[in-house]
């Protein structure tokens, strides 16, 4: 039996390794495509010219000041959302636990709007800070409401939905009271990667790194939680710290992602479902493999967002939602 188990683990490990390699190749190809494809198409030859330093001002600006930051932003935000989604997923054992659905992203965006309109916040640090604060408040509230007493998945999602509603209600009230907020809100209502603020990108990098490290560190405690609080305690992990840690990591990751791109839903929802067939339920493996998958998913969405309405563009959040909504339906159908 042990032999069979070991055998099974080895095959799944090699399967994961294969998938991992494939994901890395796809991601590289997407990065290249992301540099070349957009409202203006850059030919591979022109890219080579630019790399050789013979690109000319216009091409250099397009490649290194627009497409490259945009690609990096997509990679970072995609990975951060995948980590946050996987963590929330793993901790709540709920297939619908997504930072977007639970209102964490909209909470972060709302906090940025408030900070910008009422407190005149403009600096990258201010934007990142307020986004994380907003994400933290919503995460804490949703976890506190959803995990009180017997932890139940339904309760958590209901708490999340209730919170999203509250945020959007307060948001409408604020825009009615202060029309100036409406303008800021408009810019922060649909996630977009077009011309990301590069200083915000740099400011949030440590946050994303911290969230990522925390995510890996939390993988084992979260897996232990799945066996029930008592067993988890027996295995030497503290259920409270595991949950609180997940909240902190999710707040950092979603806050940073929102500060860069605005609220983007469904990436955190889709990634765990895509990768579970390859990784199995291990949170550590899911976080590892979810990194390139999340990044690739958002990059694909952004390339689509740049091209489907040529010569215009769509906000990437719209495409993410269009790709993600069917996933919810499939999840619901499978569970039914």
């Amino acid at each position: 039996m042990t032999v069979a188990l070991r055998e099974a683990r080895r095959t799944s490990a090699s399967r994961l390794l294969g998938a991992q390699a494939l994901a890395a190749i796809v991601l590289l190809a997407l990065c290249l495509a992301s540099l070349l494809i957009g409202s203006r198409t850059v030919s591979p030859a022109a890219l080579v010219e630019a790399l050789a330093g013979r690109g000319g001002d216009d091409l250099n600006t397009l490649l290194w000041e627009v497409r490259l930051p945009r690609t990096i932003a997509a990679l970072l935000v995609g990975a951060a959302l995948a980590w946050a989604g996987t963590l929330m997923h793993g901790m709540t054992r709920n297939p619908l636990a997504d930072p977007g659905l639970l209102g964490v992203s909209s909470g972060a965006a709302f906090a940025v709007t408030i900070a910008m309109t009422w407190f005149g916040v403009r600096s990258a640090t201010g934007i990142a800070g307020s986004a994380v604060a907003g994400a933290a408040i919503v995460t804490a509230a949703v976890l506190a409401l959803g995990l009180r007493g017997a932890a139940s998945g339904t309760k958590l999602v209901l708490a999340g939905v209730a919170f999203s509603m509250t945020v959007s209600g307060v948001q409408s009230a604020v825009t009615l009271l202060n029309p100036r907020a409406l303008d800021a809100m408009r810019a922060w209502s649909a996630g977009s990667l077009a011309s990301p603020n590069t200083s915000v990108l740099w400011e949030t990098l440590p946050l994303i790194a911290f969230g990522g490290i925390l995510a890996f560190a939390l993988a084992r405690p979260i897996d232990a939680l799945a066996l029930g609080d008592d067993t988890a305690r027996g295995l030497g992990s503290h259920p409270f710290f595991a949950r609180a840690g997940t909240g902190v990591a999710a707040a950092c990751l979603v806050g940073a992602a929102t500060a860069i791109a605005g609220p983007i839903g469904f990436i955190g929802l889709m990634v765990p479902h895509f990768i579970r067939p390859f990784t199995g339920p291990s949170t550590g493996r899911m976080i590892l493999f979810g990194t390139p998958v999340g990044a690739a998913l958002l990059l694909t969405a952004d390339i689509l967002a740049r091209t489907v309405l040529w010569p215009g563009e769509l906000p990437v959040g719209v495409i993410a939602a269009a790709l993600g909504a069917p996933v919810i339906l499939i999840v619901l159908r499978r569970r039914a």
Partner: protein
Amino acid sequence: MPSPIRRATFAGLAALAAGALLLTGCSSSAAPAGDSQSAESGAASGAFPVTIHNAYGDATIDAQPERVAALGYADVALASALGAHVVAAPESFTSVAGAGDEKNLPYIDPLPEDTTWLNPMSINVEQVAAAKPDVILATAGFTLDEALYAQLSDIAPVVAYETALYGSTSEESALRIGDALGKTEDAERLITEADAAVAAIKQDLPGLEGGTFLYGQARDGVVVMLVDEANVTAKFMQQLGLVALPAVADLGGQGSVPGAIDVSFEQAPLFNDAGVMFMTFQSDALQEKFERDPIVSKQPIMSERYVPVGLEAATALQDPNIASVPWLLEQLRPGLELIPAK
């Protein structure tokens, strides 16, 4: 709960009322236009009762209105320019957006202190009723629909658009309001003045004839360029002799509004050949984003012939009414002067 009898009486009354409406409608169209007018003093040139055919039904104005409510910017501008007593008016977009306190439009003489200010984004019917108007002008009421029309019609006769919002020329709208207020001749005079203002600027600036323009609203990463005459703003520019820059106009693709093309910031090098590039913004943050974009900021046109347009001028351009034309041309003039002569 209405009893069957009461319901029958009500139906009978409604039929009577409808009949009466029909009758007055007939009589107005049958009455010779000149007769009653000659009896009036010089200011009033219309004949009452007047029936206006709206997209949502007909409205009959029995006598020259004395208290006018206006729902759209063009409505209040024309009513004021025609000397009507305005009791309710839409507050300026600057005020709606919270960018300033001035509720009156910059090209309208100050309205009375007790004017009821309406939010044009969502018309409060009770507010309109409280102003006790005897006519409601809504040819440019952009939130008007059949339900709102029906509610407003219970207060006073409504003058709406004939077919669709922005579906008429500004001349037609001016004459429509002139007829409703009994000031057709004054409306014609305003049209002549607007035409003269256009002719004068075309004579002053020979670059206008055949020159190229871009007029857009910059959003997040995308400029909505108004290029086709299906868009009244583009049409206004065309009346000045300008054409939308072909390099952009010929891109094709879907626009966010009729007659527009959405163009990514990445395409900014195409903008350089425009004689002038007017740009409007929904907020200061979006203006900053546009001007700071790595590609946009490096284009020569940005330092040479790029002109940001203020909120009120942009709103006026969304539906240029006859009364606003002289002011609008004054606002655009510095930009129009940049257009190189051919």
